[in-house]
């Protein structure tokens, strides 16, 4: 068991004929992901990495029976690509693209929420169930199959955390990159619910960052609905207010979104805190021991 993806997930890549799309399609194939095709409007009939390319998602779905898509479409067209995947009834839509205008996402999210599709991202590394299915840009080899659910708003920080877990002998059930933008398809709460209900996930590690209130909402959810051990790290304790720290979403504005407020909420929910980024794996181990 795992969440979101497993060895039966059939994946297409939207934007497969682009340099980045092709590179990561090959990376996913190498990892063992069941990539079944790709979509680039106007390039239907071509092949990339021996996979068939289609003009539209609907055609790709009919021909391949895909139930997940990985989006590398450039920012001006990415919101439309998400809508197309949702309209075609693709269950899992993973948007890797960085730089989508926030109002485009404000237009997309109500459509996603009213559909049967789940959106992960945008501006995220993707989703991986180790040794089964990788949809995204993360380096596969740092992961090990196991029972820790990992979720994060940032990419390389997730790799760091996963690497620490693997070094400590804790494999992962599924790792989910939520994305660094202000508006994303899935929140910590959405993924917490899936991890809580997944018998194969025994503990949860989350990496948040300054900006917004997603971590506070997650803490509230954990307090009332999560029985499994949870550990957390918040990036950006030293970031000054009003400055965007790389991610569009990572900004302290109007006295909101500070690391202190987030840490206080997480502690209040009984979540084990990693005080340093070097301490993320160890914090998860402490969380497990505390509950044992």
């Amino acid at each position: 068991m795992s969440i979101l993806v497993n060895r039966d997930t059939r994946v297409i890549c939207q934007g497969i004929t682009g340099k980045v799309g092709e590179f990561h399609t090959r990376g996913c194939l190498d990892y063992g992901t069941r990539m079944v095709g790709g979509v680039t409007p106007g390039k239907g009939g071509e092949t990339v990495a021996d996979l068939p390319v289609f003009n539209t998602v609907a055609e790709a779905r009919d021909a391949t029976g895909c139930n997940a898509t990985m989006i590398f479409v450039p920012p001006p067209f990415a919101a439309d690509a998400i809508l197309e995947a949702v309209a075609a009834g693709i269950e899992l839509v993973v948007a890797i693209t960085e730089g989508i205008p926030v109002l485009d996402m404000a237009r997309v999210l109500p459509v996603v929420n009213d559909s049967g599709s789940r959106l992960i991202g945008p501006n995220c590394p993707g989703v991986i169930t180790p040794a089964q299915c990788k949809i995204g840009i993360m380096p596969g080899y740092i992961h090990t199959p196991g029972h820790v659910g990992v979720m994060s708003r940032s990419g390389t920080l997730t790799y760091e955390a996963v690497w620490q877990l693997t070094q400590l002998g804790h494999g992962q059930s599924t790792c989910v990159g939520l994305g660094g933008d202000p508006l994303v398809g899935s929140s910590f709460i959405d993924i917490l619910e899936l991890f809580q209900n997944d018998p194969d996930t025994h503990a949860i590690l989350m990496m948040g960052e300054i900006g917004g209130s997603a971590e506070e909402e997650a803490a509230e959810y954990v307090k009332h609905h999560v029985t499994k051990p949870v550990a957390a790290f918040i990036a950006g304790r030293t970031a000054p207010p009003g400055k965007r720290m790389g991610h569009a979403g990572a900004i302290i504005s109007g006295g909101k979104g500070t690391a202190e407020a987030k840490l206080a909420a997480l502690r209040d929910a009984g979540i084990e805190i990693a005080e340093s980024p070097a301490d993320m794996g160890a914090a998860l181990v402490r969380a497990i021991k505390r509950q044992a």
Partner: protein
Amino acid sequence: MKIHEYQAKDLLRAAGVPVLAGKVAHTPDEAAAAYAALGTPVCAVKAQIHAGGRGKGKVKGSEQRGVELAKSADDAKRIAAGLLNNTLVTIQTGPEGQVVRQVFVESGCAIDRELYCAILVDRAAGSPVLIASTAGGMDIEEVAAKTPELILAEPFDPDRGLAAYQTRLLASKLNLPTAAWRHADTFFRKLCQAFVDLDASLLEINPLVLTKDGTLVALDAKMTFDDNALFRHKDITALRDEAEEEPAETRAAAAGLSYVKLDGTIGCLVNGAGLAMSTMDLVKLHGGEPANFLDVGGGADVNQVTEAFRIILSDKNVKAILVNIFGGIMRCTTIANALVEASKTVGFTVPLVVRLEGTEVEQGKKILAESGTSIITADGLTDAAKKVVAASKA
């Protein structure tokens, strides 16, 4: 991206939002001429900088405020002379302040009441939201903390805009006279339309003024735009004022790097925004102060890494540099070669501590060890942080 008040007002005027007449002046004489041309007995002379809090801010070494009323052309000239080419310090500029390069001379109006209004994208609602309050002209964060019941929030769909009932609700709760409701409806709707059409990320009107003749006027206007949407707004991109921005940040953006200057002594070069923030935290945790945030991104090449080092070293406060790379898609060998190359071309004047992990890490470390450079290698995050803090204090 931020713009000046006068630019925001030009955009709002074009969008049909009521603003007062005004003119930009670059010299005291231009300010006097602007006063005369506007023809109202009272004008406001306002410093144009990208930071807020101007009304309460003061020019360094004088009592000159950032915003002052002028009752004659001579007044306007005197105020402009007090502001132009001087450094204005406000609560938002920090103690170093910001040089005033232009002033905005704006007509006065008969103010009945001052209100507050802003539009931003609310993450929780997943949509833009119009915020309004009767507590105009005040620090809205303080209002929100002390009297949250005074804050009104109406979310709206970007394409449908505000509904009529929402503008009635706002007008009623803001205690606007019923005669002003129709006007308020137009005002709020056009404001929301402008926000959406221009891909703004923040549009703040503080104060929003109810005039004695029952109309709403945007007395101030602060606008920030979604950098990700600038590709479809060439006209807005043209309003960029690089003089208002940190030069190193502008330079970094041109090289495809994400850089934010800070006040510490330890330069940081990291791949990924989350890891870059965490690296700053780590430095601080071990007793150092980060000099910057710098994310080289996922696929940085030798040229970008070299430019990143030049930018970090252009900050004279930097006493040591920490490179923290988790090679995923980016191989450690690539970054190691780039580091060696950069150390030869840039010529390091401060100690450089490097922590590599991930893809091809062993080969990467070997390249560094055999490079003959004075690069200090570290094993793990904590080791790296301790070494760089020690090096910065040596």
